[in-house]
């Protein structure tokens, strides 16, 4: 069937900010969809609140709304744009939920309104409602985990009688898995059932047969409107059922299913998508298989593209989202061509001839108080994918891609952590899934513990364990060899098992470069194979490569000038989609300028790892060894000319490599300048020379030095390690004890040590902390002629002390006088000049009274580059990448790439999105260590309105009625009066703690409800109020330092998170919030597209 001509415009709902469980994969899928639908001639309207996405670039849609993704706002956009159809299946759960809410209101999906394409409301409801889904599966003869519902212990016992132990109890209507538990014995069951019944507000529990320990699989299915179905990829989880699939190590294709079993699963997946009624597009269906009997059950299905479909797309070369978009407008699979072969149609099932491994990356170290134990709720913030010809190679490449200081499956310095732990203890440890379990399993295998015992403890399939054992055996064999006498065959075998040069260096007490030299002398260098969807059956046109060590290299020769762009690796807190945005823009801009672009990255969620983005894609770890290998392969392919390398757009990951790559290849700012900005002494001297004030401070490698600095500058001080991103381990220190603790932590060999602990090369920076200062960020570009373009000056809402990544900021600055902005711009220009920057630079300032202090400068892309670009309409990353390769700003202006910023009087706010709802045990107060996973943007005509929108987009509803709960730290109380008065003027009620209430009363502000201390244990306290639903908004600011984990403040903040009551934890945010409420009250929210703001 040809494409539909009865629809002309399509609204795509994006997924909003990056949160745990919903990351860049939806930028990847949304960007693909926007692209193909526009190519097909449809008018594309997009709504997404996330400014860091590629899809929200004004080039990708006809109308781009960076607005909050709420039913009200989307309804407004629909009213304004009147699209013919809505495509809800590309924006993750956010897209689906928003579409369902709109459907329920009769705004889409009913006659006379925009049609829902991809999946209709009935299909979404069938897949999303657990009970409905179960019944649908039973109806078509598919097995599901047996379950029953109970309202009291007697009913519960009856259910368990029927289904047998072990069982999992899930209370109804609870948040965050509270009261959920597994029971194996009758005694345990009675206890858990009682707990569960108590936890459920309606006294109802679902009792489900526990299948923890079963093997877990996923199939990615596509269906077109002619009912053709294909499987794109099968995925097998290394971690058994019981660990969320997003937190599991997974492998594609399935490894331990016989064809008979696989085909049974395939049939079931088709039956499932047909019964659920997904008419066109991609879905994923999850299965569990009993390893003893082969019994298969359906766990769930997602009627939309997902994290798994992004992984499957990268794993096979089959672009699921792109094809899904085409299917949604009426094409059938056989009418769409396979991009990679160009000769065959998309109506096939990819066959792959390699092994793909996905490994999650967690951020527990940034969330003190979190258990670090993996379970049924996803907690990882990012993931890596690796490709090898075998599982061993793929696994070890994946582990070194994580950038957690591991070089592979052990055989590295970090394995010392396990050395002291006895076998028995280790065996107990692996029964509990954690991020380190894979290494513990490896260690047990190395020590000779049997596969059966290990399998029994951790439930990882024996096939995977045997593969890991082979790594350990190879290691033992290599340990007995002399590296200088290793035969090429032995070298090759080691490399084929995924051993990095670094691991071999550790094994042989040598160093990486020596090992590399010996290996190369033996003639063993990587060969690059191609991901081609068809296992080489047809010739592939698309150069999407991965390395292995075999006979034949498939990189094709080329003589065009080439640029290698180093990506940013796995998403983590502090380094995420913003940097992928920059890398992708560089690739787009440089391709347009005639360069051949080569991307190296290992993050399957991203646009950068779409094979369409660059001329060549290497799906490889971002380590020195792997990057040098690609540079060598590219040099070889061009007859000896080495490519230029861009290291400054992918965040800290590539920047850290700048020192170990050939210096002459690095495009843009020289590594020397990068070092100048990072080296505290040189940097201070530079600022001194430029007469730019800095907060007093110095560097220290031990406590003694640290104390000497403090003697000079006084407390409080900001203590931070050098060369990290996201304020990792940054602390504000108020006294000597705290300083000693901070220095000890930094020196320790914990996770931070792995990322670059304390050493002479990486000392700790200690600066006087400027209390009450206003923080300002600047992004600028300097070209080789010395011209500097100020991209944007951002004023932070929260004061210095809250990490810039966690604080809201505004363009243009809202409270800074023009002369201060001028001073900031002029400082920025002199710093850029002094560092001889060629490309981007980000400078942070603190403004205290009439003094502008420079905090730090980073001659690289910052997290705010995409936000600035969306706020001003200037494509900073594109301009910067051209400048890095020698273009001048004047030339780019002439070319038309660089246009003046649009200033139509609008205000843009960036707000951070925090993961605390996933970690109820963590204090949600903000601090100098960044914890946000993503960001949103609000644009409107005033600060208040833009702030209101930004908060709404971030999930914080600023109320215009109801009662606000106030409890303020002493230092915040004066400002609190302003807040309270505004609330009163707006007609909102106020509840407060005794101290705050007394203070407010003394200034004539009445409080409606006063609550006592939680620790008093009598009367109504704050938590009762919040839990009781009486509070619309919480303003709670932490009491300076200390207070302890059990402080009232922390409990109040946690209660707000648990009960989903919006809250702010700084007084500056409270002031901004009341301004937002005041401006918003009594008026309708208005929406406007970026194209209108920038008059494109």
């Amino acid at each position, binding site marked *: 069937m040809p494409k539909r001509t009865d629809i002309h415009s399509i609204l795509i709902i994006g997924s909003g900010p990056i949160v745990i469980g919903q990351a860049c994969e939806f930028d990847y899928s949304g960007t693909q969809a926007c692209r193909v639908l526009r190519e097909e001639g449809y008018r594309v309207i997009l709504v997404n609140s996330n400014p860091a996405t590629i899809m929200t670039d004004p080039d990708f849609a006809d109308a781009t709304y960076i607005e909050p993704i709420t039913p009200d706002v989307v309804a407004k956009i629909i009213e304004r744009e009147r699209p013919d159809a809505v495509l809800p299946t590309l924006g993750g759960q956010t897209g689906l939920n928003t579409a369902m809410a709109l459907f329920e209101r009769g705004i889409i999906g009913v006659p006379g309104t925009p049609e829902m394409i991809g999946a209709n409301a009935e299909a979404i409801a069938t897949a999303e409602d657990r009970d409905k889904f179960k019944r649908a599966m039973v109806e078509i003869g598919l097995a599901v985990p047996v379950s029953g519902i109970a309202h009291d212990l007697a009913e519960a016992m009856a259910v368990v009688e029927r289904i047998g132990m072990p069982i999992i109890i899930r209370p109804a209507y609870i948040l965050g898995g509270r009261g959920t538990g597994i029971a194996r014995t009758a005694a345990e069951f009675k206890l858990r059932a009682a707990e569960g019944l108590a936890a459920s507000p309606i006294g109802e529990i679902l009792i489900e047969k526990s299948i923890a320990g079963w093997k877990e699989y996923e199939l990615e299915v596509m269906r077109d409107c*002619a*009912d*053709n179905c*294909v*499987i794109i990829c*099968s995925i097998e989880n290394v971690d058994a059922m019981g660990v969320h699939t997003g937190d599991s190590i997974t492998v594609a*294709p*399935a*490894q*331990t*299913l*016989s*064809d*008979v*079993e*696989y*085909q049974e699963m*395939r*049939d079931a997946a088709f039956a499932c998508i047909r019964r659920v009624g997904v008419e066109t597009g991609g879905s994923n269906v999850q299965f569990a298989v009993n*390893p*003893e*009997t*082969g019994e298969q059950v359906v766990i769930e299905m997602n009627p939309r593209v997902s994290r798994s479909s992004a992984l499957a797309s990268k794993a096979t070369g089959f672009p699921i989202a792109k094809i899904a978009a085409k299917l949604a407008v009426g094409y*059938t*699979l*056989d009418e769409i061509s396979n991009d990679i072969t160009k*000769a*065959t*149609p998309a*109506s*096939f*099932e*990819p*066959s*792959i*001839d*390699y*092994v793909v491994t996905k490994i999650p990356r967690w951020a527990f170290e940034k969330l003190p108080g979190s258990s670090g134990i993996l379970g049924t709720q996803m907690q990882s913030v990012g993931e890596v994918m690796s490709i090898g*010809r*075998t*599982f061993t190679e793929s696994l070890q490449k994946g582990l070194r891609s994580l950038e957690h200081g591991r070089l592979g499956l052990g055989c590295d310095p970090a394995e010392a952590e396990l050395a002291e732990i006895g076998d028995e203890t280790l065996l107990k440890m692996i029964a509990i899934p954690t991020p380190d379990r894979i290494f513990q399993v490896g260690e047990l295998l190395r020590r000779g513990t049997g*596969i059966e015992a290990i399998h029994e403890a951790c439930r990882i*399939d*024996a*096939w995977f364990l*045997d593969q890991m054992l*082979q790594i350990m055996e190879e290691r033992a064999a290599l340990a007995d060899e002399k590296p200088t006498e290793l035969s090429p*065959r032995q070298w090759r075998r080691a490399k084929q098992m995924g051993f990095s040069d670094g691991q071999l260096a550790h094994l042989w007490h040598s160093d990486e470069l020596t090992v590399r030299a010996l290996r190369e002398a033996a003639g063993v260098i990587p060969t690059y*194979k191609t991901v081609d969807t*068809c*296992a*080489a*059956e*047809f*010739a592939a046109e698309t150069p999407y490569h991965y390395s292995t060590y*075999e*006979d*034949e290299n498939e990189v094709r020769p080329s003589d065009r000038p080439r640029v290698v762009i180093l990506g940013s690796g796995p998403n983590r807190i502090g380094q995420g989609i913003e940097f992928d945005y920059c890398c992708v823009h560089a690739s787009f801009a440089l391709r347009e300028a005639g360069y051949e672009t080569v991307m190296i990255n290992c993050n399957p969620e991203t646009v950068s790892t779409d094979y369409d983005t660059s001329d060549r894609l290497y799906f490889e770890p971002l380590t020195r060894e792997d990057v040098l290998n690609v540079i060598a392969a590219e040099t070889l392919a061009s007859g000896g000319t080495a490519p230029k390398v861009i290291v400054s757009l992918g965040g800290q990951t590539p920047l850290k490599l700048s020192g170990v790559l050939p210096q002459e290849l690095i495009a843009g700012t020289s590594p020397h300048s990068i070092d100048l900005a990072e080296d505290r002494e040189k940097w201070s001297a530079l600022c001194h020379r430029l007469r730019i004030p800095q907060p007093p401070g110095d560097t220290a490698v031990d406590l003694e030095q640290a104390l000497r600095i403090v003697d000079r500058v006084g407390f409080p001080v900001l203590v931070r390690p050098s060369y990290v991103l996201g304020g990792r381990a940054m602390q504000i220190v108020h006294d000597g004890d705290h300083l000693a603790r901070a220095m000890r932590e930094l020196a320790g060999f914990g996770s931070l040590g792995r990322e670059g602990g304390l050493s002479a090369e990486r000392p700790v920076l200690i600066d006087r902390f400027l209390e009450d200062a206003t923080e300002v960020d600047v992004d600028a570009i300097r070209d080789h002629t010395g011209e500097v373009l100020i991209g944007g000056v951002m004023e932070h809402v929260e004061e210095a002390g809250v990490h810039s990544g966690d604080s809201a900021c505004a363009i243009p600055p809202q409270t800074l006088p023009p002369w201060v902005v001028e001073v900031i711009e002029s400082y920025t220009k002199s710093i850029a000049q002094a560092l001889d920057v060629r490309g981007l630079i980000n400078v942070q300032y603190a403004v205290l009274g009439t003094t502008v202090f420079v905090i730090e400068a980073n001659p690289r892309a910052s997290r705010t580059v995409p936000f600035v670009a969306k706020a001003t309409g200037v494509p900073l990353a594109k301009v910067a990448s051209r400048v890095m390769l020698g273009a001048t700003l004047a030339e780019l202006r002439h070319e038309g790439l660089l246009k003046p910023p649009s200033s139509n009087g609008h205000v843009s706010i960036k707000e951070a999105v925090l993961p605390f709802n996933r970690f109820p045990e963590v204090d949600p107060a903000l601090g100098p260590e960044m914890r946000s996973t993503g960001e949103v943007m609000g644009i409107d005509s005033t600060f208040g309105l833009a702030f209101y929108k930004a908060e709404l987009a971030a999930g914080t509803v600023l109320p215009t009625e109801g009662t606000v709960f106030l409890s303020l730290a002493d230092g915040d109380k004066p400002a609190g009066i302003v807040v309270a008065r505004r609330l009163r003027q707006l007609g909102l009620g106020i509840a407060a703690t005794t101290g705050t209430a007394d203070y407010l009363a003394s200034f004539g502000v009445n409080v409606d409800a006063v609550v006592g201390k939680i620790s008093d244990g009598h009367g109504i306290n704050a938590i009762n109020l919040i839990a009781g639903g009486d509070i619309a908004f919480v303003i709670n600011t932490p009491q300076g330092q200390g207070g302890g984990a059990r402080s009232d403040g922390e409990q109040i903040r946690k209660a707000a998170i648990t009960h989903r009551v919006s809250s702010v934890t700084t007084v500056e945010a409270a002031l901004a919030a009341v301004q937002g409420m005041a401006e918003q009250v009594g008026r309708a929210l208005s929406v406007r597209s970026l194209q209108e703001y920038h008059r494109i």
Partner: protein
Amino acid sequence: MIREAALVLADGSVFEGELFGAEPAGGVASGEVVFNTVMSGYQEVITDPSYAGQIVTFTYPHIGNYGTNQADFESERPFCRGVIVREMARRHSNHRAEQSLDATLRRFGVSAIGGIDTRRLTRILRDTGAMAGAFGTADEASLRQAAAAEPGTDGIDLVADVTCERPYTHNTTRIDTGSTMRRIVAFDFGIKRTMVRHLAGLGTVEVVPATTTSAEVLAREPDGVFLSNGPGDPAMCGDAVQTIAELLGQIPIFGICLGHQLLSRALGGNTFKLPFGHHGGNHPVRYEPSGHIEITSQNHNFCVDPASLEGKVEVTHLNLNDHTNEGMRVLGVPAFSVQYHPEAGPGPHDSRYLFDMFAELMDAGV
């Protein structure tokens, strides 16, 4: 103990590897080297009689992961001359497994070579077509000689090697699908057990040798005749073609793979050798009457030229990758056939409706 081995192709390409399975006679196993892109189903492929005379390369690197079992044999033993893999599983894991693949290969005297850059090999075969080759522990010169001496499968009658010696009736639990039980005569040109199992769902299956005459078939008074898959060049099966021509119009006929080619030749059509054959479980085929797409299991080197059958058949199935013929219905005569494997062993189950069509055809009679 690693048994170092090498693979040599007729074009002189050499691959280093390691020997698995049985020790080949004289250290050399030779045959026509082909590849298969299935990611699961190695046991079914290895025991498919259509691979007689051939050495099968698996493009998926890990082979043997889930072991082997009695139920997944497609015939009584492997007929292929050898197996080429990247990584032979040392340990298998699956509740259905009874033996490792390595042990199974040893049991039947089949040799395998592991550690091969199978992607390089596949790319060679893709570009030059199936090629003679030899592998083993013998020295390179011996392997080269063996590869050169290998006749390939063109112009060779391999069916004689794989067909049953005498007729037999398939014993299975009967699934009563209609009021009358049908009687099916199935020609064994190298028949797969999954085919027999599917036919058994339709009626009593009498499997007969490839050399069975039309008179012998008719004497069994069947409701339908089934033409199985099989190895080699259809042009070498002249007698069977003659038999089929005699049966056409007298009894409903259904053919698969070699059976499809033989039916075509019986109608006067031509077959030709594909550059590198179709061997995999992911080929899209369109069923022309409905436009529906089936993902199919394929294993053939020869192909029917539909132009040579103009006016005699309706082309019912088309391969969407290379647009070669995948199926036909004979005009005016109750006979149809497909090139691919609707019985799927291994492979997708998308095309099982063809067996129902055969049942309908038999019920309609001549």
